[in-house]
């Protein structure tokens, strides 16, 4: 895909959004007049912020294939994924969590994580055989390790309905981690998470980032995000209004006015 204006291209971008947009019932949700364009580089920890209704979750939906962009293209790892189905996004290595945590209600916590892995036994032909049992065992082991890591080891056999909102978010992250995604999109990971757990979440994100996973995080809790991210994208009314390091963003008048109302911007 073509380069985006104003972006120096010294590194190859892992994810390129080039002029993507989405309209709902005639209302522009994402993209403005020219579409939304930005890059995420491999190994980065990128924050995506903006006031309510700025189009953050819609952008996530476009990047993860849940919605299809009205224009432009999304390239991931050199592959055009604009038209790919959502589950193919997941298979290409884009993982995501959701604004309201989603889980598989009929399963235990451990099963929820194991279900995150892709087992060859998920093919109809293989399901009746025995071959999937090996994969199942290693997935279960991996799931247990991950649960320990996110601090849910003692809840492994609990039904998910027993989990608190914060624990559900941790579970959602765990379910993605077992897939070892190249890029992980986290949608408001701290919402509804109590402060103690937030610290653990921060540590976890820092860890997985350090291990090489690229992260793109939507977060209202700027305190949390600005401390972790190394690059911030600011979205307002579907358009990218600013980007830069957390320090830049903190003092950017455009960002402040977007949050506090247009009056103060004028």
């Amino acid at each position, binding site marked *: 895909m073509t380069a985006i204006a104003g972006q120096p291209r010294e590194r190859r971008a892992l994810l390129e959004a080039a002029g993507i947009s989405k309209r709902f019932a005639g209302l522009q949700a994402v993209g403005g007049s020219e579409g939304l364009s930005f890059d995420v580089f491999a190994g980065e920890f990128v924050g995506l912020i903006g006031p309510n209704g700025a189009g953050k979750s819609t952008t996530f939906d476009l990047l993860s294939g849940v919605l299809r962009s009205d224009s432009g293209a999304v390239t991931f790892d050199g592959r055009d994924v604009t038209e790919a189905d959502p589950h193919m996004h997941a298979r290409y290595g884009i993982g995501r969590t959701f604004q309201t945590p989603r889980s598989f209600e009929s399963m235990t916590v451990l099963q929820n994580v194991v279900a995150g892995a892709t087992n060859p036994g998920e093919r109809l032909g293989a399901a009746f055989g025995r071959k999937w049992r090996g994969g199942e065992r290693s997935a279960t082991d991996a799931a247990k390790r991950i649960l320990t890591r996110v601090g849910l080891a003692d809840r492994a056999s609990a039904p998910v309905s027993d989990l608190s909102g914060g624990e559900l978010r941790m579970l959602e992250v765990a379910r993605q981690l077992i897939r070892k995604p190249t890029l992980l999109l986290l949608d408001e990971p701290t919402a509804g998470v109590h*402060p103690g757990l937030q610290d653990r979440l921060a540590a976890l994100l820092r860890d997985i980032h350090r291990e090489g996973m690229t992260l793109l995080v939507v977060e209202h809790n700027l305190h949390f995000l600005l401390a972790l991210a190394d690059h911030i994208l600011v979205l307002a009314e579907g358009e990218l209004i600013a980007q830069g390091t957390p320090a830049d963003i903190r003092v950017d008048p455009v960002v402040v006015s977007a949050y*506090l109302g247009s009056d*103060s911007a004028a």
Partner: protein
Amino acid sequence: MLLEIRGLVSGYGRVTVLHGVDLKASAGEIVVVLGPNGAGKSTLMKTVGGHLQPTSGEVLLEGRDVTGLTAQAAAKHGIGHVPQEHNVFRELTVRDNLRVAALSHRGTDSGFETVFERFPILAQRSSQRAATLSGGERQTLAVSSALIGEPKVLLLDEPTSGLAPLFIRQMVEWVQELADSGMGVIWVIEQNPEMILAASTRAYLMHGGRVTDEFEGRELLKPGRIRELLLEERQGAVGESPTA
């Protein structure tokens, strides 16, 4: 005290969202509720409006216990609720939206006139379906509909999100008038709070299903104060003094 909420605990099914909320509003007051996404603001509004059953705590309206009423009963007692989403009947015309609100009330037409006078755009579109209105018009209609029922307390759940500043200013003026005429208003906001705060008498900051801070409205208008609150998001640390 017009409306008094004490130790309200509520949520969806097994998920508890509100962990004991206290809040007060007297007649003629505009009370603002601030807080990040997921803080429980909408849950609070829904519980007071009768759409969710609290598991404990109480809601008093003019000293009478109105805890756990149905939405219909709450409306009858004078609680007007404008939900954040789906707050108009999209398939119905503008006029019919207002007529529905007038169903449980008599002397409806004067109410219509007032609404149409104040918002000529609604009068113009009175026979259009509400789904065809712009965002601002729709919010205006939603608030107008709630007002037709002549509530004692008006619960506004972010009626200004995504609206142009002009509309917000109009709405603030209008709500101000309503408050001046003796109505209590509880206004949930998440963004563009400055204009609204200027009109408010009091503000509550919610976080994690609790009220973490309570301010006089003017206090928040001090330069940089909101920014500090919203950008340097507080962690809901209870020990922290509000005026520090």
